[in-house]
C-alpha cells in the first residue's frame, strides 16, 4: 500500500481511535478494590505473616497495584487514629490482626456511619462489635482458650508452682481473660499454682518487670516460669522480653512460633501464617459481594507447638517426651 497522504490520514485516524478507546477503557475501569490492613507490629517484626497474607491473596488472583490496592498500617500503637485514617481513605474493608485494632476499626466505622466489612484475626468478638449491624467476620484466635494447654505444656517441662504472667494493661480484652483462663486450668492440677501478674506496656515496663522478678530471687514469690499473654505488643517486644528472661534463666511460654524462634522456650497457639492465609479468603469472599454474615467466624484451623532447644539448654531444662513428639517446630541449638 502506497504511503499516500490519504492512507496516512486513515492510519492516523485509526490510531487516534485506538488510543481514545484505550484511554476510555483505562479511565472508565472501575477503581481497584481498596483494603486497609492494620497490623499490630512493626514491619520488621514477623514479616512472614504479611507475606503469607499477600501470597494467599495472590493465589486468589489479587495483586497489589493491579487488581487490588492494599494500604498497610503497621505498628503496635495508635490504633484508633490509624483506623480512622484508613476509613477516611475510603477503604472498602479493613483487615485487623489484633484485638485493639479490631476495636479501633469498629469505632472508626461507627464514627463514620459507614460500616464497612472488617476481617478479624483476633480473639472472639465479645464486645459491641458483635452486634449484627457491624459487618465483622474472620478467624478467632483462640489463644486465650488455649491457655490451659499452654499451662499443661509448661508444667510438662517442670513443676512450676509459681508462674508469672505478663499482661498488657492496655488490652483489657486479653490480659484478664488470659489470667482467668489460667486460674480455671490450674484447678485441674494436684498442687496449687499461683500466677503473679506483671504489667508492661513499654520497654521500660518490661525492664522494670524483670528487675522486679530478679529482686524476688530467693523468695517463694519468685516466678519459676513466665507465661506471656498473647498480646500483639509482646510479639513486638518479644526479643527484649526473651533477652531478660534468658538472663534470669526463666522458662517462658509464648503463643507464636516466631517468639520461640527468637528464644522463647515454648510457644503454643494458633498458626499465625495460617490465620493470615485464611484472612485472604475472607477478603476474597467479601470483595466478591458476600455479606459478612454469610461468612461464619472460624476457629483456629492449625495450632502450632514450637520448642527452642537452645534456650532449653541455656536455662538448663529438659524437653520432655510428650513435648518432643508433639512439637511442630523444634529450633535446635
Amino acid at each position: 500500500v502506497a504511503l499516500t497522504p490519504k492512507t496516512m490520514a486513515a492510519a492516523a485516524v485509526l490510531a487516534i481511535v485506538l488510543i481514545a478507546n484505550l484511554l476510555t477503557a483505562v479511565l472508565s475501569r472501575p477503581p481497584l478494590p481498596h483494603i486497609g490492613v492494620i497490623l499490630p507490629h512493626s514491619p520488621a517484626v514477623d514479616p512472614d505473616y504479611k507475606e503469607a497474607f499477600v501470597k494467599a491473596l495472590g493465589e486468589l488472583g489479587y495483586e497489589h497495584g493491579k487488581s487490588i490496592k492494599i494500604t498497610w498500617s503497621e505498628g503496635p500503637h495508635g490504633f484508633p487514629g490509624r483506623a480512622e485514617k484508613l476509613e477516611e481513605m475510603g477503604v472498602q474493608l479493613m483487615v485487623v490482626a489484633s484485638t485493639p485494632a479490631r476495636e479501633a476499626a469498629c469505632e472508626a466505622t461507627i464514627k463514620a456511619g459507614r460500616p464497612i466489612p472488617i476481617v478479624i484475626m483476633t480473639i472472639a468478638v465479645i464486645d459491641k462489635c458483635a452486634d449484627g449491624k457491624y459487618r465483622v467476620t474472620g478467624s478467632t484466635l483462640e489463644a486465650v482458650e488455649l491457655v490451659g494447654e499452654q499451662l499443661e505444656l509448661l508444667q510438662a517441662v517442670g513443676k512450676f508452682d509459681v508462674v508469672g504472667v505478663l499482661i498488657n494493661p492496655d488490652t483489657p480484652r486479653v490480659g484478664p481473660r488470659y489470667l482467668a483462663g489460667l486460674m480455671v486450668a490450674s484447678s485441674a492440677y494436684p498442687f496449687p499454682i499461683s500466677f503473679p501478674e506483671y504489667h508492661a506496656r513499654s520497654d521500660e515496663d518490661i525492664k522494670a518487670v524483670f528487675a522486679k522478678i530478679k529482686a524476688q530471687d530467693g523468695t517463694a514469690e519468685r516466678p519459676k516460669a513466665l507465661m506471656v499473654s498473647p498480646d500483639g505488643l509482646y510479639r513486638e517486644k518479644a526479643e527484649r522480653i526473651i533477652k531478660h528472661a534468658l538472663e534470669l534463666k526463666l522458662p517462658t511460654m509464648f503463643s507464636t512460633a516466631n517468639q520461640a524462634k527468637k528464644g522463647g522456650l515454648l510457644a503454643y497457639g494458633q498458626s499465625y501464617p495460617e490465620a493470615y492465609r485464611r484472612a485472604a479468603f475472607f477478603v476474597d469472599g467479601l470483595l466478591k459481594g458476600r455479606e459478612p454474615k454469610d461468612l461464619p467466624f472460624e476457629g483456629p484451623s492449625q495450632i502450632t507447638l514450637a520448642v527452642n532447644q537452645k534456650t532449653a539448654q541455656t536455662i538448663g531444662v529438659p524437653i520432655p517426651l510428650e513435648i518432643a513428639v508433639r512439637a511442630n517446630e523444634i529450633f535446635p541449638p
Partner: protein
Amino acid sequence: MNLLDRARAAIPQSPILRKYLLSIVLIACFGVLANGAHEWWSFNNVHRQNLEAARKEAVRVAAERVADYIDNIQSQAQWTFLPLVRGDEQLGGQDWLRQSRLAALRLFRESPAVRKVYRLNANAREQLFVSQTGKDEYGSGADWRAKWPFSDSGGFAIGNGPRSHLQPRNQHSGSNPFLLVALAGSSPELGITVLEVDLRLLWDIVRTTKVGRSGRTHVISNDGAVIASNEMAKVLNGEKLKSDYVRNALDHRTATKIATVPGVQTNDDKEQVLAAYAHIPKHDWLVLVEVLASEAYAPFYAAMWNTAALVLGTLALVAFVGTQMARRLVGPISALTAGADRIGNGDYGHRISLDTRDELQTLAAHFNVMAARIGHAQAESDRIVAERTRELATLVTELRALNEVSKAVNSSLERHGVLNTILEKAVELSGTEAGAIYEFDEASQRFSFVETQGMDQQLTELMSQELIGTSPKYVAEAAQSRKPRVVGDLELERGRGPVAELLREAGFRALLIVPIIHGERVLGAIAVRRRQPGGFPQQVIDLLETLAGQSALALQNASLYEELRQRKGRLEQAITLLEALLPRDIVSIVLEHGIDGLKPQRREVTLVFFDLRNYTAMSRALEPEEIAEALRDYHAALVPLIFGYGGTIERFTGDGVLVIFNAPRPVEAPAEQAVRLALEARSAAQRLSAGWRGRGYELELGIAIDQDHATCGLIGSEGRFDYAAIGNVTNRGSRLCAEAKGGQILTTMRVVSAVRELAEAHSLGKRDLKGFSHPVEVFEVLALKPGAARTAVANGLGSGGAKDSPLPIASA
C-alpha cells in the same frame, strides 16, 4: 439525437465498487462464518466432552484424596493401639495409657485436623482423653455409648472396621464442625479410639480439586450434610444440600462410582451448574463437583463472541480494504472516465493525473498522449484554419480592394480618381502610413507626383521641388531595375539624396517602391512609406505590384482615352461636314453600312419636284447676291419641311429641288408623305412669294409628284459619286414639274390613287409630255381632305424638327 449523444447515452453507470465490495464481503463472510460453524461444531463435539472429562477427573481426584486423607488419619491413629508390652514386660494400666497419650500427641503433629483423641474401652468407657486445646485426662470413665451412635445405628460398630460419624457444629461454643472417626482395636482389650477431626482441614483438599475458577467441590454425607466444601461457610453452617440433582445423585450413589450429571442443573445457591459426582463407599460419602455453566461455556461464548467480533472485524476490514481497493480501482477509472469525458468534450489540455503505478497509470499516460496528440492536431488545425482564414480575409480584403480598384479603373477613365483609389488601397493594405504615385515623363526623363497619400502639404511641396531637379534615387533604381525596391530603414541609408532626407525627417523609416511598367515602358512608380522600420512581406510586395499593374492600366487607359477623345472630335467634325454636303440619309447609311449600303437597287420611289417659276427670267434681272438670298430663304423654308416628312434631298439644281421618298431609306406611305410635303411646301412658298413680291420679284413654286419604280443608288465613278434615282419616273416627274404653274401641285394617277383618302385632287386631263410617246393624265392636288387634315406621319427618319407644326420660316 445525434451520433455523439447516442454514444454518450450508451455509457453505463459503473457499479464496479458495489460489485467488487459485495463479492469480497461475501467471500470473507463465507470464510469467517464457516469458521464460526466449525467452532460451534467443535464445541458440541469436543468441548462438551472435554468439560465432562474434566469434571469426572476432578471428582475422581477429589474422592480419592478425601478417602486417602481419612485413611491416612486412621492409619496414624493405629499408633494408639500399641501393644501392651515394653520389651518382655506387659504394661500395666497407667503406663499403657501414657504410651497411648504420646501416640495421640504425635497424631496431633502428624494430622493437625485431629483435635481430640478419646481412648475408650470395649464398653465405650473413657480411659484417656487427649486434647490440643485442653487439659488431658486419664480414666475419667465417662460413658459415651449413649452420646455416640455405636453399634445399633450401624455407624459405630465396634470391631467392625473403621467408621466415621459427622458431628454437627457445636454452635454455642463456637467450636469447629468435626467428624468423629472411630477405630476398634484388633482385640477387645485394646479398646476403641475415637478421633475428633476438624472438618475444615478437608477444605484444603477440596479447594485444590475444583474445576475452573468458580468451580465448587462438596463432600456430603449420605443425608446431604456438607462434610467438606471449598465454600467454608457451608461446612461452618452445617448446611445440607437438597437440590434435585443432589438428591438424585444420592439415590443412585451406590450404582455408579463416578458419574456426570447430564444437562445444566440448579444447585442450592440457585446457580446454573454442570455437575459430576463420585461415591466413596467406605464412608458412604458423595463428592460433588460443580462448574458454573456460565464459566464452563465461557470459552465457547468467548469463541462465539470472538467469531462474531472476527466476522464484524473482518467485515469492517474487508469493507475498508475492499472500499480502498475498489476506490483505488474505481477512483482511477473514474478519473480516467472524467478525463476521457473532458477530452471528449474538447478539453485537450486536460491531463489525467494518476499515481497508481500500474496498468491504469499506463492507460492514463496513453490517454494523455492521445489527448496531447489530438490537442496538438487540433491546435495545428486551428492554427492552419486561422492562418487560412486570415489569408482568406487578407485575400478578400485585397480582392475587394482590387475589385474597387478595378471598378475604379473600369468605371472611370479619369486618372486622378483611379490613381487616388489605388494609392489609398495600397497604403491601407500594406499597413503603411503614407504613399505616392509618380508619373514618368519620358521626354524629360523625370518623375513627378501624380497622387500622394498621408503626406502633408509642406512635405509634398518640398518633395515636388526636389523632384523637379532630380529623380528620387530609390524610385529611379526601381524603375531602372524594373523590380520592387525595399528600403528597410532610412536611418541606415544616409546620403541617399535630398528626397530620402526629407522622408527621414518626416519620420518615415521603411520604403517600398514598385515601378509602374507597361510593356517595356516605365510609366511611373508607386511607393508606400512606413514609420516603422523593417521589411515588407512578399504578399505586400506582390500586392503592390498588382496595384502597380492597375496603375499602369489606369495611366494607359487615361492616355488612350485622351487620344480617342481627340480622334472622336475630329470625326464628329468630319461627319457634320459630310452631312451638310451630302444628303443626310446618305451619310447616315454610309456611316452605318458603308458604301455598299448605297448600291443601286430597284425599288418604287415617290419623287417630289420643286421648281421656282420665273426663276430663269428673274436670275437674269437680279444681282446674284439677291438671287442667292432668295434661294437661301427658299431653301431654308423648304429643307426642314423635307427632312420633317422623311424625304431625301437628291439634289439642288439652282431653283429646283428633287426629293425622294422610300429611298435610300424605306418610308411608310411615301405617297402620302410626298403629298403632305407638297401641300406644306406650297403654303410656305406662298408666304415667301408674298415677301418676294414686296421686294419686286414674282417667284412662285411649282411642284410635281410622281411615283414609280426606279433604280436608286450611287452613280458616278471613283472620285465623285452621287446618289440618284434612275428611271422613267425621274423624267416624267421632271416634265410634270415643268408643266406646273406657280402654286400648282401636279401628279399622276398612281399617286392620286395612293392618296385618295388623304387629299383632294382633280384631273387636268391628259397631257403630252416631252419625251413620252403617250399622253399622261395629269392631276392637280388641291388640298388635304378635311378628315385627314394634319395627321402628319412622323416617319422618324428625319433628324430635324419635321413636324406638322408651323415651320419657323417666317422668322428666318
